[in-house]
């Protein structure tokens, strides 16, 4: 019963939606700051993916080359 009540209370929060701004700087800063945030977020997200993919592909090529020789 207690669990059910907790569930209902938590569910009732969805009746009063509000916008939550997790990062105050991101939404209240200048336009230039916003652009810098977006740009650097994209940069730091894509960098490891690109680098690890390139290294993986390069290793694959090296091993394939070795197989073809032998």
């Amino acid at each position, binding site marked *: 019963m207690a669990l059910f009540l907790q569930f209902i209370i938590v569910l009732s929060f969805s009746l009063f939606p509000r916008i939550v701004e997790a990062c105050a700087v991101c939404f209240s*800063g*200048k336009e*230039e*700051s916003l*652009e*810098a*945030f977006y*740009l*650097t977020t994209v*940069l*730091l997200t894509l*960098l*490891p993916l690109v*680098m*690890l993919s390139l*290294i993986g592909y390069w*290793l694959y090529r*090296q*091993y394939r*080359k*070795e197989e073809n020789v*032998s």
Partner: protein
Amino acid sequence: MTTTSSQSVLLATSESSLPRQPKRAEPPVSSGVIGMLLFMVTEVMFFGALISAYLVIRAGLDEWPPWGQPRLPIETTAINTLVLLVSGFLMSYSRNLFKKKNISEGRKWFGYSILLGTFFFISQGYEWAQLIKFGLTVSSSVYGGLFYLIIGAHGFHVIGTLAFLIYAWNRLGAPVNPITSEEIFPVQLLWYFVVCVWPVLYVLVYLD
């Protein structure tokens, strides 16, 4: 002379009596190189984070560089940048000589590359001393703080890699327990990284 039972066991298990094991094939890429490549990924992320912090802080300020702060020596650092790039080129040239088994000649150009790297480091140190004299310190402004953080991080990488390179140069072809030209390739890779990241920092911090 008769052999005891323990001696006969030793004879039976000696190297000559064992069936010949097939020679283990060399992997196309050494573990050292793979390890260094993964380390370089973390290094790129480290510098990526510093650059990101620089861009975000800079974007939030109206005036850059801030008023009253000394300007950075663009021309002197341009010459330094050229010296570092030549050092990277010489490192690549020595690598080619090592591949052709011309170890003594390769070692010579490897040494020249280290010398140019050392010149870069000393010259940057002199530049820092001048900037501190003119009032640009870590605590003077966010400009000074970012400058010393980013350029200092690169400087630490230069001195660390140079220490490894000098050690490798010393041990290359040493009479006792030498290291091979293949074994120093990971450190050469690290030097390429240090050389390649500098022009990015130069354009970003000095020119932009």
